[in-house]
């Protein structure tokens, strides 16, 4: 069957209008989760149906699309979604962050700084940051209405009481523009500071949970913390084993069944770009 059997970007026009209206409200109320009539997509929940619907409602023929999954352009989820839009919207795709106008992401923000005019679409599994603390939607909705977020601070405090530090490492809760508590999706807390006053427009889609939310450019995004336990990001002892980059998020790669492993950039495009520029592993004295 040819792609022409579908409307441009797969969704019908009424669905797009519904999603577009939700997106406009989301931009006008940063961090607030706008309910929307999420559709069945030709992929299972958990594979990014929310992000795909947002992308489908936004994308145009002039867009250049990049899709990443945990920072990588070449994993199944990323390849499938990129191929999906190349087919149903006939858009150009890329793996290079700087060339993309639209980036759909699962659980990472690219290392290359985003610029004004770019749109970052996050795939979100559980949009409600309070859901694991309070299962009732009626209660969490009231908490958001009253801006009553003491429960989340108690959760972070209990982390400290139990572990001596805030042990939350991903989906680390943020406060948007001093008003709404927001789940940044399961990105590592390493990426949280990149959301703060980003020049790019950030859109979030949760398909199963039927919520859309957004952060406009240059919006305050503050990770929750305490005066005596300030927010910090992960640090890695060694640079990337392939490109030698420091200050980037690294993935552990298991090399054999004898405990061999190495840490490499989670952002594959960033790592490839650096290696193309001639960067390589840092040679250290400690190497035997």
């Amino acid at each position, binding site marked *: 069957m040819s792609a022409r059997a579908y409307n441009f970007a797969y969704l019908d026009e009424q669905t797009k209008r519904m999603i*577009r209206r939700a997106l406009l*409200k*989301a931009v*006008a109320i940063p961090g607030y989760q706008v309910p929307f009539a999420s559709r069945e997509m030709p992929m299972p929940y958990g594979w990014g149906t929310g992000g795909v619907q947002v992308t489908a409602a936004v994308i145009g023929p002039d867009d250049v699309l990049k899709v990443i999954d945990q920072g990588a352009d070449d994993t199944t989820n990323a390849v499938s979604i990129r191929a999906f839009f190349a087919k149903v919207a006939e858009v150009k795709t890329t793996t290079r962050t700087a060339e993309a106008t639209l980036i759909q992401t699962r659980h990472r923000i690219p290392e290359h700084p985003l610029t004004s005019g770019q749109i970052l679409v996050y795939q979100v599994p559980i949009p409600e940051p309070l859901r694991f603390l309070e299962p009732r939607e009626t209660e969490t909705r009231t908490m958001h209405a009253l801006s009553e977020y003491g429960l989340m601070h108690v959760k972070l405090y209990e982390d400290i009481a139990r572990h001596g530090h805030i042990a939350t490492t991903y989906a680390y809760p943020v406060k948007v*523009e001093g008003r709404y508590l927001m789940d940044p999706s399961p990105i590592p807390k390493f990426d949280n500071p990149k959301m703060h006053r980003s020049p790019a427009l950030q859109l979030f889609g949760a398909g199963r949970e039927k919520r859309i939310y957004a952060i406009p450019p*240059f919006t305050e995004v503050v990770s929750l913390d305490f005066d005596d336990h300030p927010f910090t990001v992960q640090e890695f002892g060694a640079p990337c084993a392939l490109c030698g980059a420091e200050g980037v998020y690294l993935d552990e790669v298991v090399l054999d069944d004898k405990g061999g492993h190495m840490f490499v950039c989670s952002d594959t495009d960033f790592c490839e770009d650096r290696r193309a520029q001639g960067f390589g592993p840092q040679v250290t004295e400690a190497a035997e």
Partner: protein
Amino acid sequence: MAAALAQGFADPVLDAQQAFRAVLMALAEPGAPRALPGLAHAPPPLPPVLAALALTLLDHETPVWLDRPLADSNAMKSWLAFQCGAPLSDDPARAAFALIAEPAGLPPLALFAQGTDAFPDRSTTILIAATPTRQSLTLTGPGIDGSRKADLPIRPSLVAEWAENRALFPRGVDVVIAGAGEIIGLPRTTRLARG
């Protein structure tokens, strides 16, 4: 009559997508004009850019409130019914969208749906024609790096009203101003100051 009714987007899919991107970026970067071509054969007295916005955003799910000049035009109402299928609402507090062709006649913002604290998204989005005169303003808020100076084509009294709208946050209305071939977004988060 039938020919006039049939005047929609030349390409309903791609024209709507382009127009939506303009509205999205206009609200994401308040005060900065975004190019949006008007509809070639908009039914008077509906301005061409407002007509393009209506085609982009309105359908059977969105009750729409019309200002007096639009509500008095049967041709315009027939066009809206044919192209969008949007139900008309006499009560601005029940409207998802308001179409305002004559900006001097804009009712007080407080009459439109403001949303609730639990559902602030259940508010009216006002699509309004630009005024011939402009107000020199400084804008601050999300979407703006520091502050932005802009000459907004709105009536003078809207500046004071907007402060009241801003104070309701997260409730309140959002506004899209339609000029000649361009739009300007004014989401409820934006603060306006004279000068």
